[in-house]
Every structure is written in C-alpha cells, then in structure tokens.
C-alpha cells in the first residue's frame, strides 16, 4: 500500500541508503535524503513527512537534539533511529526522546524494508481507525 507516504532520510548518503531511497521511490513513495541535520530539520518543517530514518551520529550535529526537535514539531512522524556507535546510553536516550524504532548500522536493505513496512502498517492502522470515526 504505497499511498504517497513521505519518507525523510537523514544520513551522509552511504550507498545502501541511496539504493534504498531509489527502490522506495520506484514503489511510489516520496523519498528525500539530506546529509546535513539542519537542512533536514528545515525541510521537515516545510513538508509533512510520515517516516524519518535518522542517523543519530551525523557529523554536523547532535542527532538526539534533532530527534527531539522533530518530535516536538510533529509527534506523529515515525522516526527510526540508525546508530553506528553502539553506546547504550545513546540508544536509551533516543528511545526516551520518543524514537519509534532503533536499528544498528550497518543496515541491509532487507532490514530497512522491514522497518519501513512496520511503520507504514502502523500508520495505516491509525488511519483506518480515524476514518472509521468519520464514516
């Protein structure tokens, strides 16, 4: 069910994610990839993104802070944290700040797929429930 979900990927643009972006786009999702945290945040506020894949260890800034700001702006967005540095406190902190899912890098396309599908399934369920109320 690729009913025009908008997906935001915030990462330095490693090949796996680039390919993932392309495969998602082919399936009809709108995918944007930004490597700078500040740019991503700005774009996030301009347009509605349903799912965010956020690399918590971005070179230019604090991933947790970014997560917090995004959640504050739109708490309904499903934010999936990707981490390459597996310190436990980072992971806990992310989950405490509202991350909807967490995954450890290196990521494979299969895992990414699973995570995105899971988030979409959730969103779909919510939508159905809400539509049920107004119909």
């Amino acid at each position, binding site marked *: 069910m690729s*009913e*025009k979900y908008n997906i935001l990927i915030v990462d330095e643009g490693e090949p796996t994610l680039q390919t993932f972006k392309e495969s998602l786009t082919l399936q009809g999702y709108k995918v944007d990839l930004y490597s700078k945290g500040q740019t991503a945040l700005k774009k996030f506020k*301009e347009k*509605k993104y*349903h799912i965010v894949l956020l690399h918590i260890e971005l070179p230019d800034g604090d991933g947790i802070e970014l997560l917090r700001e995004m959640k504050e*702006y*739109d708490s*309904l967005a499903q934010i999936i944290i990707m981490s390459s540095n597996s310190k436990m406190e980072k992971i806990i902190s992310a989950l405490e700040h509202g991350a909807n899912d967490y995954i450890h890098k290196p990521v494979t396309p299969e895992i990414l797929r699973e995570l995105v599908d899971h988030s979409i399934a959730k969103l779909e369920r*919510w*939508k159905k429930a*809400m*539509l049920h*109320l*107004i*119909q």
Partner: protein
Amino acid sequence: MDIMLQTYLEETEELLQSAEECIIRLEIEYSPQEINELFRIVHTLKGSSQMMGYDDIGDLLHKMEDMLDLARGGLLEFDEALIGNCFDGLDTVSRMLEWKKEPTSDSEMVHLQNLASEISQRVDELIRLNKKDEEKSDEDKRETHLELGFVSSLLNKGKYNKETQGKNKFYATFVIEEEAPMISPVLMMILQTVDEIGSLLYSSVSDEFFNAQSPDENLRELEIIFTTDFEGRELSKHLEIFYVESIKITDLGQSEPRGKAQDKVLNDALDSTQILGLNEALDRAQNEGLNETLDNVRSEGRAKGQREILALIEKAQVFLREKELIRTFKPEGKDYISTLRKYSKELPDSTLLLGLDLRDLPLVCEKELRELISLKRELEEKLELVILVDGPQARRVVNIFDAIKKVAEFKVYKNEGEALLDTLNLREFFGKLGIG
C-alpha cells in the same frame, strides 16, 4: 470597401506612423535596435502591399528595404542622405495609400509613381556610391544580421513599441512533438505567429539557440510571455502550429492594470536578465507570508532587481484578489459549515479557491470533518476547498487532514498567497524567470 482592403489600409497607416517615429528617433541617436525595427516595418509593409497587388508601393518599399538592410548590416552609412530617402519614400507611400483609399485623379497617381521611381533611383545611386568596399563574406554578413538576432528583434518590438502592445498579457508553454524533424523552424514559427497576433516580451529560447552551429535538437519546450488584444479563449485557434503537441496558457491579466498608470517596473521586471535573487525572494515569501515579505523588503530598500520582482508578485496578488480568485472564510460559532456552504453559493464564477481559515480552530471534530468532506465534493466542479492554517497549531491540522487523505485530499497552505502560487503554478513560472 472590402474588409481586406480596409484592414490593409488601417495596418499600413499604423506601420507608417511607427516607421516615421523610428526614423525620428534614429535621427537623434543611432541604435541598432531601432534600425532593425525600421527594417522590419518596411519589410512587413512591402509584404502586405505586394499581397494586395500594389506593386508600385511594393517596389518602392523593396528598394528601401534593401537600403535599410545594408545599413543595419554596417555596409551603408546611416547618414542624412539615407534618412532623407526614408522620409521621402515613406511619404510617397503614404500619399499613394491616400489615393488608394480615395482616388482623386489619374494624373495624381502618375505623379506619385514618378516620384516613387525617382526615389528608387536615388536609393540605387546611394548604394552604388557608398556601399562599403570591404567585401564581407557571406558568413560575415549572416553574422552581422544575426547580431541583432531573430529573437531579440522580436523582443525589442514588444519592448520599444508600447503602442503595439496588446491589452492582455499571457504566459505560455509550448511542448513540441517528439516527431518534429527539426526544432528551429518550429520554434521560429511559434515566435513569428505570436508576433503576428501580439508582442513578444520574453522567450526562454534566445538568439544563441538559433546562432549556434547545431542547435540543440533535444529541446522540446518553449516558454514565452506576450501581450495581445485577443482574449484567452480565442488564443488556441490562433496558435495552431504544426508539430506543437500542447500549449499551456496562463493569463497574467491586463498588461495595463485597470485604471492605473502604466507600470514600467512591471515591464522591466519581465526582462529575465535584470532579475536577481528571485528564488531568495520566493523563499522569504513562503516563510513570512507574501504581505510581510513585501513590507519588509520595501522598507529594507533591497537591490533593484528584487524590488521589481516583488512588485511583480504584489501586482499578481492584487490582480488575483481583484479577480477574486481566492476567498477566505473564517469559522464562527458551532455551525460554521452550513454558513460556509451558504457563503460558497454566493461566490462569483471567477473564484477558483475557497480557503477555510483554521488558524483559531486547530481541532476539527469528526462530525465537522464529515461535513467538510461532503462539502468539498459538492463544490468540486466549481471551486476547490482548501485549508489555510499557520502558527504553532498548524502541524496538528496538517496531521488531521493528512490522516483522511484517502477519503478526501485537502490541500493545506499557510496563507492565501501560497495557495495561489501553488494553484496557478506561478512559483514554477517565477522560478524560471529567475534563471539567467
């Protein structure tokens, strides 16, 4: 008097007037644009006279055309003698025309014809004596003629000859068929046809395209801005050109705003080479709202280019509001949707968008949503119902309408300006003007 003759006489009178003004301007100061303009007028006059069968007029104009062609190519000095010939030639043509309109006596016509041949002879002499010795090669000649290229000469017509500007202004995109064997002729045809029905003010394809050794045959789109006296609905039948697959036309409104003085800024702003920082202006407009942006930039006294662009946006906004393309409704009280429904029935036919301002009402309950959805469907044919919301609660509203997207797709905007920019694809249009 039959229609064709009448039209010919009217048009020729106008053209003669323009030509005369050209020469006067050239007397004061030589300019390649003006001389090119003069050449084109004489050329057109020649063509139409020959079509009417007026060979006496046509031949004289032909001589003048040759003379002007050499002058604009730099092979003949634009001096008093030449100017004199121009004045005399045009004067004789004018008198011949008078005679065609209201014949006096045969001897009068003979007299005029003698005058004409005398002037022709003078032109021949002038050319024979003064034509520059440097034998330019054919390629050089072509280059000189192309200096004031095909497109710029059409553009200058639009800019310098305010009298020829039509009362309506349009922006049009032409998409050319894949099967078109060659691009340049199709583009030229389009530009020439536009020139016939009005004045060209901007073209996305410039002289460089035609001057290039091998024009880019992959180009499939031409964007232009032009004025014309024709109304929007009449345009398509005038713009039927071979190999053009589709034409999209946007009405930019009266080229001269109702009841206001002619706005030079607006016309200058359409010169793509003078526009700077357009994207920046639009970004600000998007973030701050069009009204605020206009105020801010005006008070900051920014660069000329940007001020002009914003004048253009402002004009567009005012025009669009005058045309009542968008109307906004602010909910009051519990039963606002039925009031909204009644309001929508009162709107004029020209309104495209009905904006529901939810700035103070960020939570919409199920019943209201249901009613809004059914109202949107009701209005579908005539109007698009859109949501306007801004501020900290905006995201909630966005989420609500996003959730019900499957059932009804409500567009959500920050303000009227954004809604209009989006609906009319003006952002794309302005963006393109900003690129070089």
